[in-house]
């Protein structure tokens, strides 16, 4: 599903070169739930940005669902990102003056679905996260946990191949974090491929496989995934 071989990322200024990733290799298979851990500044977020096609890399190879992303132009990268990737951010990143329906609609608009198809997908995605009754509500009317659920619904609505979650519970209290984590586990149980960046060992332990990153390099990787949940199946709510 996601394969990086000897990837490097160098930030250059006229004074200094910073190697954010070096010789970074990882292979995430379809249906896996991988936690990427490491201290602050280790390169976790850089990895996630490159995985999400939000940043270019300096060297190495990256295949997403079998597609070599090197040399792609902005429009092609954007299209690939829209079709294959669902993002879940620490800060939820909902648009405050759009209601839940319209927030979930955003990626579907860029996909070019017709109105009926978009409505079907939005309603299914919000139902999947238990918020179908609040479609016309605005983000400010929801709790943090509920906002993160909306963000997950937005990520699911386009039936992506992979979910990238960056500290998805980082802005939530314990109880809400537990609820969001449970939802991610359920999605994984339904067959979703998830990569979650976290520095919380307790959360990482709930993933199927852990990848530890220090100084831009993978230093510890569990080669074989631990099987969890009922098995791999495409989540019913977001079937394409």
């Amino acid at each position, binding site marked *: 599903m996601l394969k990086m071989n000897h990837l490097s990322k160098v930030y250059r200024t006229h004074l200094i070169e910073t190697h954010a990733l070096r010789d970074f290799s990882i292979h995430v298979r379809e249906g896996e739930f991988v936690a990427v851990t490491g201290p602050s500044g280790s390169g976790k977020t850089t990895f996630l940005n490159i995985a999400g096609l*939000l940043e270019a890399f300096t060297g190495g190879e990256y295949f997403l669902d079998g597609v070599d992303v090197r040399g792609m132009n902005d*429009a092609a990268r*954007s299209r690939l990102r829209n079709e294959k990737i669902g*993002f879940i*951010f620490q800060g939820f990143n909902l*648009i405050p003056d759009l209601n839940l329906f319209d927030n979930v609609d955003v990626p579907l608009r860029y996909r070019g679905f017709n109105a009926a198809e978009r409505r079907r997908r939005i309603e299914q995605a919000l139902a999947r996260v238990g918020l179908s009754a609040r479609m016309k509500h605005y983000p400010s009317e929801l709790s943090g946990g509920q906002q993160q659920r909306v963000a997950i619904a937005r990520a699911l609505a386009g039936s992506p191949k992979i979910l990238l979650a960056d500290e998805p519970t980082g802005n939530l209290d314990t109880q809400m974090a537990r609820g969001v984590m449970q939802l991610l586990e359920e999605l994984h149980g339904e067959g979703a491929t998830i990569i979650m960046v976290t520095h919380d060992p307790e959360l990482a332990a709930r993933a199927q496989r852990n990848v530890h990153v220090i100084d831009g390099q993978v230093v510890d990787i569990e080669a074989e995934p631990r099987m969890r949940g009922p098995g791999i199946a495409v989540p019913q709510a977001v079937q394409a």
Partner: protein
Amino acid sequence: MFGYYLSLGLRSLRRNPVLTALMVFGIALGIAASMTSLTVFRLMGSDPIPWKSDRLHVVQLDNWDVNQAYDEEKGRLPDQLSYLDATALIAAGRADRQVAMYKVVLPVQPANDAGGPEVKPYLMLGRATYSDFFPMFEPPFRYGGPWSREQDDAKARVTVLTQTTNEKLFGGADSTGKTVRFDGVDYTVVGVLDRWQPRIKYFDLTVGALTEPEEAFIPFTTAIDLRAQSSGNNSCFKTPAPGWDGFLASDCIWIQFWVQLGTPAREAEYKNFLDAYVMEQKKLGRFERPLATLLPDVNEWIALQEVVSRDVEIQVGLAFAFLAVCLVNTVGLLLAKFMRKRGEIGLRRALGASRGQLFMQHLIEAGVVGISGGIVGLALTGLGLIGVRALYSEFKAITELDWTMVGVTLLLSVLSATLAGLFPTWHACRVQPASQLKTQ
């Protein structure tokens, strides 16, 4: 996607009403200033009789002082003819239609037998002209029609009244066949004009392009017979002999002379005739200056006489400079607005929007600001034109906003705002999504 971008643009306007109001009013003010000036400029310079302006020509001859040109600064030929030349050209009758004319003062002595409110005697301006004036310049008739060429020759006491004069003297009723008294002489009304107000009084620019047409028309021959003096411009380079006959025999210029020529061939023919006429006159000791004759058509005449003055051009330039200042202000405000949306832009990028899509979205948002500014600007332009009319009554005919100008206003507004939106949009679309998503 256009509909989606449009709805996002409208939503974005509502997000920050104060900033939106500043941008919309900024554009509206610039648009209103430029469109008010442009309307006046356009109507002043526009063709007042487009269906035949190329067939109507002013006759210009140069019988001025041999030692001093008529217009030393700009080198223009005299804009009027002497009585001698005007009557000679009329007598030659070489054009399809021809008219010599001048402005007269007509003291009106109302009969007050219409049964309406009493009208006291008053002075009005009239035009002494030939019957060809009416088919040449085509004022619309409400009642009756022009007098005949025979009545020109017979120095008949006939008149054509304007709608206003007919309203004043006859309560607006059909007055053809009735009599009006001007300066102790009775004239029979043969026609009454409908409302007629050319945007500019191109057939006589000697006392201003924006003056209204005279209030009654009488035959040129009758006015001469009655020794009605010109109340327009009279220019002489040497003192005429005393008395009315002395004035008529002089080289003073005071008569506007127009001809109608159906084809370019007829125009060339008439020009040759004029040159021959001048050469003939030279033999008689007149026209001492080098041969110079001109036959400008209506639009050439308007340009030659600088109806659209340099002042008006400068005013339009300044108004557009003001619009540019307003647009610079809009660039700043849009930049601030779009920079505040960096987080959303980064998010939309992460969710699959390409730079091109975001560029289009924000350009349409700028366009929405533009169309809003255009609508407000249109209202302000209307107010501006009312203001111009209130301050300068002579501008009445050239301060009306037609549908073309409404369209131009809205288009200019959208184009201006879109132009103003280009840099802020480009700048906003350069946002690195990764840097924004963590900071939201």
